[in-house]
């Protein structure tokens, strides 16, 4: 691993060519400035965040993660960050947050534990970090194993040209004999309606009412109920028609001064008699 080699001593080209030179800042000679103050590049793209960086640094200890020296790991991380800073690198915030936390952890690990501290002990924090690293490493390990399995579509294939299973929807129509007959009957009756003639309703025309009223009123000298002037018979519709036209006829007679009208109460019977002196 090259991270032990101070970058200023390392051959930048050799570092760039080595796939393991992930953590060594190198001078970017392709940068726009190109001069001594040119942009510096650290191969941070090789990491998926600070935890990944920590994990890769931990691997350089070449021991089981369970036996790793957290203090040494913290130092490695802080050294890396310092290197990056020395080269005036912009580091993403989460790398710096991790650095600050690790610096705190380091101080906690080095100082004697405070009495009746409610905070988790430095050892607990270290163990937590360790577990986190183990979890990530374990997931990476099984992910690789998962991907290495015989995969459908790559290593094992389904049938290349399956005939396919079809579900054929067969339309079944629903219609009863009654609906059929009813429909036919409706057409036949509607056929009659095609030569549509509105029915002549039985009506008592205004002319007829006037004529009847003029004929009958001559015989009355008393106030007489309007209803008694209505023609006999007919159905309800006819009677309504007769009432309406007879009423209009009385108004006409009153207008002409040939009859007097009176009503004793609202909606009460309407009385009429021949006007005196006619």
């Amino acid at each position, binding site marked *: 691993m090259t991270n032990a080699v101070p970058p200023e001593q390392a051959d930048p080209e050799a570092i760039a060519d080595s796939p393991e030179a992930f953590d060594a800042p190198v001078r970017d000679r392709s940068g726009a400035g190109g001069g001594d103050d040119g942009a510096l590049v650290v191969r941070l793209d090789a990491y998926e965040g600070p935890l990944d960086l920590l994990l890769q640094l931990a691997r350089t200890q070449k021991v089981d993660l369970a036996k790793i020296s957290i203090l040494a790991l913290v130092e490695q991380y802080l050294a890396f960050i310092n290197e990056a800073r020395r080269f005036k690198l912009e580091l993403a915030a989460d790398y710096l947050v991790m650095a600050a936390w690790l610096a705190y952890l380091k101080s906690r690990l080095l100082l004697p534990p405070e009495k009746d501290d409610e905070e988790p002990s430095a050892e607990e924090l270290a163990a937590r970090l360790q577990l986190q690293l183990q979890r990530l490493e374990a997931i990476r390990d099984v992910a690789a194993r998962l991907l290495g399995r015989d995969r459908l579509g790559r290593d094992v294939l389904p049938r290349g040209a399956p005939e396919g299973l079809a579900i054929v929807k067969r339309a079944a129509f629903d219609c009863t004999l009654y609906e*059929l007959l009813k429909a036919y009957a409706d057409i036949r009756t509607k056929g009659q309606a095609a030569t549509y003639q509105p029915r002549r309703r039985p009506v008592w025309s205004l002319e007829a009412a006037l004529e009847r009223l003029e004929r009958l009123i001559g015989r009355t000298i008393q106030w007489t109920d309007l209803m008694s002037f209505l023609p006999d018979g007919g159905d309800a519709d006819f009677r309504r028609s007769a009432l309406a036209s007879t009423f209009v006829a009385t108004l006409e007679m009153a207008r002409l001064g040939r009859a007097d009208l009176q009503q004793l109460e609202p909606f009460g019977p309407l009385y009429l008699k021949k006007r005196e002196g006619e």
Partner: protein
Amino acid sequence: MTLDPQHLRMAEAILFAATAPLKDSEIADRLPDGADVPAILAALADQYAGRGVELVKRGPVWLFQTAPDLAFLMRKEVDELKKLSRAAVETLAIVAYHQPVSRADIEDIRGVSLSKGTLDLLLEAGWVKPVGRREAPGRPVIYGTTVEFLAHFGLESIKDLPGLEELKGAGLLEPQEVSLGEAMGVERTVPEDVELELPLPPEDEEG
């Protein structure tokens, strides 16, 4: 002659995964040199004979296919119950009572033009079929009902359809109060309906 069982397995997998039928030579390309491809394929076809899947040769190419006698399994028919539209029921009734009828006859009787889908639907249902052409100008196709029609409606013959008198007796032919709106086709929003001319003399108004 003994064939390498591994060669059989390989040919089997290759043919199974192939997206198109393969020639002997295409299979040979993937098998180890010296494999007796014709013998392998013959042996494989033998092993599959009588199974639900068969290895068959079609001209120069080989393919797996499901056994022809099981083709019915590949299609599962599902009944989908559909209600006939009002127009379809009426059209069906007209065909039943007036057969053989042309499209124009149906339109005449219903008083509205017939949308294309209506007759198609009845043909699809298998209740109506073309029975010939009328010897008249344009030689229009004429339609009648089918045996399936009789079966569906439980009729022995078309003569079993109740006549007008019987319909009347059943109360189905009661003269209807036809509202002005109905007569004018107001309730119908279907564009196929022709508009009725207003037959209303002004003195008919009751106001």
